[in-house]
């Protein structure tokens, strides 16, 4: 496997062992079926118990809640290997871990943590993250989903969310809503909503040409009645869901490397075996340039994410740093997937090969968790001090 700058030497034995375990799982259990799942538009749900057994859900959350208690570099390596399989598989784990388990861990009461986290780590309870709305994607501050506190302390939730990964298979949804008629972002709170609550509906988004091996849904809340212990007590303001996104984006910066590696390895192998004009195409200058560019970008991205992981582990990292990593790594991965597809020639359009599946998936990854453009402006503001958002 690709390690041109011997980054393995910068990993601990445990980090390598984690990476190797997940890699093996992907090779043996995911790669054989994922092309067909993608074509069929099906998330391989039957693998969830094995993924849970392996320990990939909430892997960087503490052992006392039934999680693996790994550091952030190990967590990143897990995401890398999952996405080397498929972005949809990695999205499932990102949502479960960083967007459903993490908010409960960060903003929940001790009771909520003990009640939900171990079951989620075991894959018995699947979660999803309800932030994005049909009219509020890049601008979540504008959300209209509203939770109204009742006289007895319970809540009534109305509104809807869109583009929710795991939405139709989740047992609970961590929903972010404004509260008590206050339309400012300060009133945003998080709620744990069991998806079998009356008034909660989830509808699968059909017709996707990207992330097909993933469940993407629309959620609708019609007078969904929540008990008073549904609220995440320590949540408050847009900052709360954004903190969750920062966790997920960090993992995605690693995941994109995995997708790029998969495309690169496939392209290298193909270029050595495919013969045209009596030579393997890997001996032609134009293909070598493609491969050299891919190699460079992957190596750079690996170093960005590794350093970011060490910073995160030391507690000294910023969301803007995560923006740089997500933006850079996903962008380079989309380029690599496209170039790999081109190198493969005609077979590159088949589901049997992974390049075009990654290429299509990465368009979603480019767009979600903060579009490329949004991260551009985050960095622009970080550099100049001036917001170009509106």
């Amino acid at each position, binding site marked *: 496997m690709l390690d041109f700058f011997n980054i393995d030497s910068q990993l601990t034995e445990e980090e390598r062992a984690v990476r*190797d*375990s997940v890699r093996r799982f992907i090779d043996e259990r995911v790669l054989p079926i994922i092309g067909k799942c993608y074509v069929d538009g099906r998330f391989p749900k039957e693998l969830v118990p094995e993924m849970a057994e392996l*320990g990939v859900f909430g892997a960087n959350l503490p*052992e006392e809640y039934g999680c*693996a208690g*790994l550091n952030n570099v*190990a967590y990143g390596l897990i995401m890398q290997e999952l996405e080397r399989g498929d972005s949809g598989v990695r999205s499932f784990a990102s949502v479960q871990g960083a967007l459903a388990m993490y908010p409960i861990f960060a903003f929940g009461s001790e009771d909520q943590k003990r009640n939900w986290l171990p079951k989620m780590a075991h894959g018995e309870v699947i979660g999803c993250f309800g932030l994005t709305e049909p009219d509020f994607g890049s601008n979540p501050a504008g959300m209209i989903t509203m939770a109204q506190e009742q006289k007895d302390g319970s809540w009534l939730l109305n509104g809807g969310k869109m583009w929710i990964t795991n939405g139709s298979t989740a047992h609970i949804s961590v929903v972010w809503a404004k509260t008590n008629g206050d339309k400012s972002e300060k009133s945003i709170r998080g709620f744990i909503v069991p998806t079998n609550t009356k008034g909660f509906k989830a509808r699968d988004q059909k017709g996707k040409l990207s992330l097909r091996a993933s469940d993407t849904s629309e959620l609708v809340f019609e007078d969904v009645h929540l008990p008073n212990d549904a609220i995440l007590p320590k949540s408050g303001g847009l900052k709360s869901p954004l903190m969750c996104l920062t966790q997920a984006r960090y993992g995605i910066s690693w995941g994109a490397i995995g997708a790029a590696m998969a495309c690169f390895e496939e392209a290298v192998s193909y270029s050595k075996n495919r013969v045209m004009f009596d030579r393997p195409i890997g001996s032609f200058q134009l293909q070598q340039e493609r491969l050299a560019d891919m190699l460079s970008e992957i190596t750079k991205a690996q170093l960005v994410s590794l350093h970011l992981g060490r910073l995160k582990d030391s507690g000294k990292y910023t969301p803007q740093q995560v923006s740089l990593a997500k933006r850079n790594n996903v962008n380079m991965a989309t380029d690599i997937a496209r170039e790999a597809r081109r190198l493969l020639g005609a077979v590159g359009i088949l589901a049997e090969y992974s390049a075009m599946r990654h290429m299509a998936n990465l368009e979603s990854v480019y767009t979600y968790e903060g579009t490329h453009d949004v991260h551009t402006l985050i960095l622009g503001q970080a550099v100049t001090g001036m917001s170009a958002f509106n």
Partner: protein
Amino acid sequence: MKIAVCIKRTPDSETRFRIGGTASAIDETGVKFDMDDFASYAVEVALQNKEKAGSGEVVVFAVGPDSVQETLRKAMSMGADRAVQLKTDAVPFDGLAVAKALAAEIKAGGFDLVLFGKHAFDTSAGVVGTAVAELLDLPCVTAASKLEIANGRGTARRELEGAAELVEFPLPAVVTIDEGIARPRYPSLKGIMAAKKKPLETKPAQLGQSRVVVTSMALPPDRPPGRILGEGTAAVPELVKLLQTEAKVL
């Protein structure tokens, strides 16, 4: 049930090997090392038997320098309870020398079962396991492709040439494990974390004298290039003719 498993750290079997400068060893640049495949089947068999028995201990042993600790920890992350490193700078090729070190260590352990891989990928010799059995004066089944333990006795199947032998034996015993018996579980992430806390003991290896020594290594000669005779059934007559006249095998 107390089970000992002897494992080895060997190069990845998919490697395209090159010979090093001294022509007496492989060039290890860029070569990945991991638990030997047959040894990992043995670890899996041990874990399954401990689980079936409901209680017990699986102890893994390895001879080698400190780099072997990673391999021992991998076994512990799969579920082995503790590990012992018999430390030496370089593992000798001489299987009997290695067997003496292992036998000396395992002897007092009170093990019901001592497991080895059928052979190690690098030496491909199949000496150590059976030699340890002899040194411990234990019954030995070599290259078991099936193994069942019950009530202090074992039954195993081993492949002969064109036949299969079914055997029965009392415990304690040594068994060397062939492929096909079990797929090794991959360490769960929790297992990897738990392994860090499990005991790994290091002791000097009491190796026997090394009387079988590698003097050189070489890549096998390439076969001379062959040729494609043609396409489809039309090429069959030419093939038969060449098999008769040129290759003289028909």
